[in-house]
């Protein structure tokens, strides 16, 4: 019974708190929209969220005390890298929107249900107490059925008792309803813990619910209008008032879930949202103007405001795009220069290796053969010795050429692709290596080769410098991007020199493919080399 009394109290608090909430929402949004393109919008949004947050906390403690929930509204710190983002980050905060929805529901649903419940209980009490006061008031329950005698008044008592029980019983489902609302809208964001697909399905579902609620409520009001006066078509106001949030909601979901909508117009997402909101609000204002007598066309002013805002944003977008293009050209120039340098130094290294290695060995082989030729007749024993030496020299020259060829492009990479080449590489390493390659199909040869050499360099460094025993190699597609991620982690003592020749070469190699290479190697280890290589050509 106590729980029911508390639930009733909770229902009644909807009246003052709902009024406060509506005031906060109206003030917040009016200021935001009015100042939308001025810097003042940032403190307004931050203040709006702060006030809404306190209201949500008050609502939460009320719900915790009266209907037994245990919710704690999340406290979000202002994020964002710069002044503007700090303000706009409020709009990306799901808690901000959920709190607004709670306040709105507290008014729309809360007030209605509170009024219905209180009237029901009052009627029930009135009917139960009928025998006491029928003498003075003679209430007329139905046409031609005034309660003016004791038997009639007594007949009302059972009806009153039944109604009273119904009213008290109803408090239970009402409590459940508001508990659900408070937990879902004021508590922790459960959407954040969902997978992207689940969250997406949920957002679409929320839009369906919103549209369904809009349709049902308006259908109901139109039916009521049709059954009653049929005079002035007042449901137009709820249609308009509820249609505006629905239109904005639908647009936001559309732009978010179907990025191609924004992409087709070659505008960033934020501008896409702005366009939708401006369009919806303009349409709303024009409709309001049309409904209210079509005098002076006042919506021209806010529409002009939106148009200016839109133009300003579009200008910013164009400027930013041009600047980004310039930065991109600069990056490309640097990476191309790096690639050319890299190629140049690689060629020089190969030339030096050939000169000092295989070429020198072949000269030596030639000399042995010449000497053997001389001694063939005079000293066949010595000649045989020299010939054997020449054969060994040839073998060594071949070995050096083989290593050199492997360093230019490992045969296994050509033959069987990245997975097999990496496994062949680690087969030659004395370390305990774990290889995990998850690729569907083969990347382009340039990407395969870069990925291979990232692994090769990391493996070589791990055994040469880091004193590692164990290596983990992971190669897999990067989520949501047409790129692969190569990660090599060792258990060595860290402290790798990032500006060393090997790492610099790899970085240039990655940059030439428009990729990135990062090395994390704190003193004491572990060293992690991570490369991201885009696959699109």
């Amino acid at each position: 019974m106590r729980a029911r009394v508390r639930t009733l109290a909770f229902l009644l608090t909807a009246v003052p708190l709902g009024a406060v909430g509506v005031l906060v929402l109206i003030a917040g949004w009016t200021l935001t929209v009015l100042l939308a393109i001025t810097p003042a919008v940032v403190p307004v949004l931050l203040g709006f969220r702060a006030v809404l947050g306190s209201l949500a906390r008050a609502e939460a403690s009320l719900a915790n005390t009266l209907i037994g929930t245990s919710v704690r509204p999340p406290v979000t710190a202002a994020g964002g890298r710069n002044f503007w983002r700090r303000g706009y980050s409020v709009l990306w905060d799901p808690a901000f929107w959920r709190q607004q929805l709670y306040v709105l529901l507290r008014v729309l649903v809360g007030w209605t249900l509170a009024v219905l419940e209180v009237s029901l209980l009052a009627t029930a009490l009135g009917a139960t107490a009928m025998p006491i006061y029928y003498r003075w008031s003679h209430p007329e329950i139905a046409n031609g059925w005034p309660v003016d005698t004791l038997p009639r008044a007594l007949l009302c008592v059972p009806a009153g008792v039944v109604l009273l029980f119904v009213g008290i019983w109803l408090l239970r489902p009402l409590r459940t309803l508001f508990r659900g609302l408070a937990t879902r809208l004021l508590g922790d964001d459960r959407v954040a813990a969902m997978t992207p697909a689940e969250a997406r399905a949920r957002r679409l579902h929320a839009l369906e619910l919103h549209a369904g609620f809009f349709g049902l409520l308006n259908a109901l009001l139109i039916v009521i209008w049709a059954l009653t006066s049929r005079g002035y078509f007042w449901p137009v106001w709820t249609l308009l008032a509820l249609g505006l949030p629905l239109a904005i909601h639908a647009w936001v979901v559309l732009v978010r879930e179907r990025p191609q909508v924004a992409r087709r117009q070659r505008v960033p997402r934020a501008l896409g949202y702005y366009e939708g909101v401006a369009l919806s609000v303009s349409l709303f204002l024009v409709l309001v103007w049309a409904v209210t007598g079509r005098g002076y066309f006042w919506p021209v002013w806010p529409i002009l405001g939106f148009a200016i805002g839109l133009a300003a944003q579009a200008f910013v977008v164009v400027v930013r795009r041009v600047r980004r293009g310039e930065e991109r050209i600069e990056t490309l120039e640097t990476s191309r220069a790096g690639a050319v340098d890299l190629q140049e130094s690689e060629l020089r290294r190969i030339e030096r290796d050939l000169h000092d290695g295989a070429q020198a060995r072949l000269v030596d082989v030639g000399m042995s053969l010449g000497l053997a030729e001389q001694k063939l007749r005079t000293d066949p024993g010595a000649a045989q010795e020299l010939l054997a030496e020449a054969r060994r020299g040839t073998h060594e020259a071949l070995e050096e050429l083989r290593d050199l060829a492997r360093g230019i492009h490992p045969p296994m990479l050509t033959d069987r692709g990245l997975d097999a080449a990496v496994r062949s590489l680690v087969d030659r390493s004395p370390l305990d290596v774990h290889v995990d390659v998850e690729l569907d199909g083969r990347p382009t040869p340039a990407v395969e080769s870069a990925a291979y050499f990232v692994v090769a360099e990391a493996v070589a460094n791990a055994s040469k410098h880091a004193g590692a025993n164990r290596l983990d190699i992971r190669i897999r597609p990067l989520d949501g991007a047409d790129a692969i991620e190569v990660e090599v982690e060792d258990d060595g003592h860290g402290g790798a020199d990032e500006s060393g020749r090997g790492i610099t070469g790899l970085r240039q190699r990655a940059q030439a493919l428009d990729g990135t290479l990062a090395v994390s190697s704190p003193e004491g280890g572990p060293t992690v080399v991570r490369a991201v290589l885009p696959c699109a050509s």
Partner: protein
Amino acid sequence: MRVVIAEDLALLRDGLTRLLRDNGFDVVAAVRDGEALVHAVLLDEPDVAIVDIRLPPTFRDEGLRAALTVRERRPGTAVLVVSQYVEQEYAAELLADGRGGVGYLLKDRIMDVDDFVDAVRRVADGGTALDPDVVAQLFSRQQAEGPLERLTPREREVLSLMAEGRSNAAIARQLVLTVGAVEKHVASILAKLRLPRSQDDHRRVLAVLTYLQGN
């Protein structure tokens, strides 16, 4: 002994043909790609096919695939695959069917003519010839504190030669030992590694390789 050669470079094809003819082999066909190899094997029924791994048209592991096809289409054909580089994985694929008559050598080994000719004969007779580099790779993957550590240096040498597929007599020649001494070493190795004794050289190779790969 009838031999078919598959090698795309004319220089090496002719050199190999001359070398084998000089050593008393009957080179019945010398072809330049995998498809021609399969044809030649089915037509000329050689005792052994010597195949370069890198062949047209892809210049990848075409030769290896052709060698495997040959062994599938005409079981019992011995195949010796030669290459400029050796890969453990390819060795494993060649040995996978468990039948003898398989070889996998670096092209360098051809220069050591006596040894190479010996390897060709061994493979043609159903034995094994595995390149020392592959064996060395297998050894390098062994943990420092395995049963292999309990072998003496001489026993490790013997084990390497066993893995290459050599007979006790060949091992004795190579290490300048008596056959009796080699037999004693082999018995000691098999006991230390808990491997079964076997008279069949090829089966012995498989046991040793399985042991080396398994650790």
